[in-house]
């Protein structure tokens, strides 16, 4: 079980969190033209990197904040955790 440092609450066990996927995906802006390809990429296309990955987790049984976690998908090493509005 991973040990994740919530930037709001501190170190907590993985079972307090739920996983939210790739944190680098950016939603196209509202009311803007989006090509079929760009929209499909946004909705469906995800990288599955072996190694460093910036991902979203929600501290669902804690402060309910969505946070960013930089994690190695191979070793599970967590390099850093960030608040939703922080950049790497």
């Amino acid at each position: 079980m991973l040990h994740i440092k919530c930037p709001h609450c501190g170190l907590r066990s993985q079972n307090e969190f739920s996983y939210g996927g790739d944190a680098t995906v950016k939603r196209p802006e509202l009311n803007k033209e989006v090509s079929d390809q760009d929209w499909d990429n946004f909705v469906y296309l995800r990288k599955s990197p072996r190694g460093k990955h910036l991902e979203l987790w929600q501290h669902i049984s804690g402060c309910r904040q969505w946070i960013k976690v930089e994690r190695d998908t191979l070793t599970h090493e967590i390099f850093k955790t960030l608040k939703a509005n922080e950049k790497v």
Partner: protein
Amino acid sequence: MSEKFRLDKGGLINRNKKISFKFNNKKYYGYEGDTLASALIANGVHLVGRSFKYHRPRGFFGAGVDEPYAIVQMNRNNEVDPNVRATEQELFEGLEAKSVNCWPNVNFDIGAINNFLGKFFPAGFYYKTFMWPKSFWYKVYEPIIRKAAGFGAASIKHDKEKYEHKYEYCDLLITGSGPSGLASAYAAAQNGAKVILAEDKSRFGGSLLTSEVTIGNQSGREWAEKIMSELKSMPNVVVKNRSQVFGYYDHNMLVMSERISDHLPKTEKYSPKQRLWYIRAKEVIISSGSIERPLVFGNNDTPGVMLSSAAKEYLKIYGALVGKKPLVFTNNDSGYETAIEFKKNGIDPVVLDTRKDPNSEIIKEAKDLNINIKFSYVVVAAKGYKKVNSADIANISEDKKNISNIENIKCDCICVSGFWTPTIHLASQSGNKTKFNEEIDAFVPSQSKQKETTLGSANGIFTLEETLKTSFEKGAELSKQITNKENNISVPAVIEKKSSNHDKFWCVPLPEGKNYKRFLDFQNDVSVSDIQLALREGYRSIEHVKRYTTLGMATDQGRTSNLNGLQLVSDIENKVVPQVGHTTFRPPYSPISIGAIVGREIGKHSKPTRKSPMHYWHEKNNAVFVDAGVWLRPRYYKQGNENLFEASKREAKNVRQNVGVCDVTTLGKIDIKGPDAAEFLNRVYTNAWLKLPIGKARYGVMLREDGIVMDDGTTTRISENHYHMTTTTAQAANVLSHLEYYLQLVWPELNVNVVSSTEQWAGAAIAGPKSRDVLQKLFPDLDVSNEGLPFMGYIEDNLFGVNAKIFRISFSGELAYEVNVESDNGNFMWEKIMDIGKDFNIQPYGTEALSTLRIEMGHVAGSELDGRTIPYDNSLEGLVSKKKDFIGKRSLSKTAFVATDRQKVVGVVPLDKKTSIPEGSYIVKDPNVKLPIPKLGHVSASCWSVEYDNPFSLAIIKDGKNMIGQKLFAMSPLKNKTIPVEIVSSHYVDPQGERVRS
């Protein structure tokens, strides 16, 4: 029966307490402090089971967790426990155990015929044999294999025992209480670190209990006892015996299984049988020691052949003799310790040493004791079937390739020592890249990935002096980093005998013309010839060889077989062992009972149960409950001998004719506040929200970004910047996370807050033509007319002194109101409604009637919003705004989503107006065409229409828009039914929606 093989004195057993027990229905005696294995050995019992594949007789091989053979079925306090190692099971009064893998009994086992059919059971036997004919698999092969497989039979009864889970945090977790564990625990504890010391066995001390060493001015055992008593008295130290750390997981989370009651005749009151500890440790010290390696020779699985360290342990701890005419077969000095121990107890051993001319203190001691030692000698084959009675021994050439002068000597046990294998399982599980140590022919931990340090013989260090020195140092160093305290401890002086080098020889060649089975894996019956065959057949990777031959795949995880298997592969392949590499070690290190893994989360405790404030009223009024997610909801209220069908029909009819009330507390509720709340809702829902007036509710549908409907519900504008959202019961948690996702990550500029208020409000839906009359009497001062409180209106009032929110919304399609009060007042509200409603023939209705009402109205719910449908499919396209953007809108223009023949929800009525259509049935055009029959769609929900008194279903079918009026078939292969049906509008009752507005 007397214990013929028990020494008169010695050992750590309590000779004042005699214990009786039964093995294979025969009564024996042992002492407190015995294991089942030691007690049986003291009674001269060596035949304890049959092997897995060939059903050869099996005895004892080890004295602890390394035991591959002696697996028994326990009967304890009327509960059965399979897969128990006799070498680990402590003896208690009245213990009952049986052999496994044999029928009709262990002495006469019919399966042993496999032994003579051995050549028909080669490696990969299952893969080769059970391929054809294909139809034989289910009916013939599988049942037979299932009957033959496994180590014992699990109980089919409910387990009465309790199991617990515990979460713990510590500075240092130390796994094993041998010299390295004790020294590092002591040093760390002195520095004030919070230490957990875990010992798998019942006795602390590990190898110190059986080794002849002096530490300071004490024997090894006395020193261990002294350190243990100090550790036990320290408040920052937890010591746990019978506790095995079996798994090393991510971020230094380790799991330990504590066997609390297995050594007792029955579990004490208020005590669990076992407890699983989830331990998050800042540092882990692995002091799991090492396991002696077998030597491989002919028939080396015969009962009476065992590890020399085990024989020594039975002598020194239990005072039990594994034989009275022992043969010790060794390639290193360890075998001499066992031989000397025999000699000291008046038994004359013969030692066969594979080495030509070794010299060391202990060999000299053995010589001085006049022990018969034969150098350059090996055991060629053990003789005897159910117990060793002699051995063929021979001279071995210097290059270890040829044997000569074979002779037979009498013996009743063969104690083998092929040097030591460090127990690296935990280190390997943690991600440690292990390395091969040439000097000891074994893998040892190398580069740590997590915070772990391996010490002592687990790290390949076999001298006590170095072990103690490094362990004291490491314990102090690691704890100092955590506590910033330092207490200098002086390392005590050690007196131990120095060893000479071991011989790298491990496998005795076969004599000419003999084809003895030479076993590598004793639990899975894998022999040298099996590995040779696998390699001849082209298997190269050790992982493949393992799976093909099952080498090291048994419950003992190859503790005694892995390295010899690797040696063999590398010998044949002409590689060195590190090139072959070892297979991956995975948790658990040894079998863990399923009960311990599950813990207390069984039955009703497997998930939380949520009850509405009106739950006990429902109970008192004969409600039959149904699980709705984590909630318990009344399914129907039973009157007299009614069944589900009759009761739900009565309840639904009463709503259509009079008035009914339904507990809707379980609906998800989300409180939304902030100046940008309207804008936010406008982006979340598919329809327009900017112009919703205060005091009005609106139905909304929300999508995922892929255009699929996520949830639906009503949201009410309470005040300028305050909205009350409802969600379906099932999706409440997901919708909240969804809203938080967009507010926190996508549109952080929106000034909106959301919070779940599901538990804050109790809700009652009052529905039916007479609901207005009930409402008027509940709120006498309120204008409840169609003008005063129109459809989708919202108002707050006072219910006999209690604040209430009144929504005029309807799921049943009837004139209906939903009244919410604070949860504490839920029951008060409910009783008032029932009391006042009496005059209008009010009846409570459950989820079954609720479904009937919504289905015949064509209102979609969870069975249509099933994660595969878009608004159009649910006839909700009218709610999709063309003017504004919202979550998922862009996906709705995908080609598949705008196809003109797209699936759509329709109504389905059986032509005979009698036969109910099973939910999940396929809708097909012609049921008689060749398989597979093309399907048009499926039936999503079925009910008995109370309006028309005939069955009615909803279905989602291709081109549903143009199918109205078609005569098709509903097919349920599951129920073996084919029903002719007509497709009708999904709005079966009141298609204009006049009633809700009346």
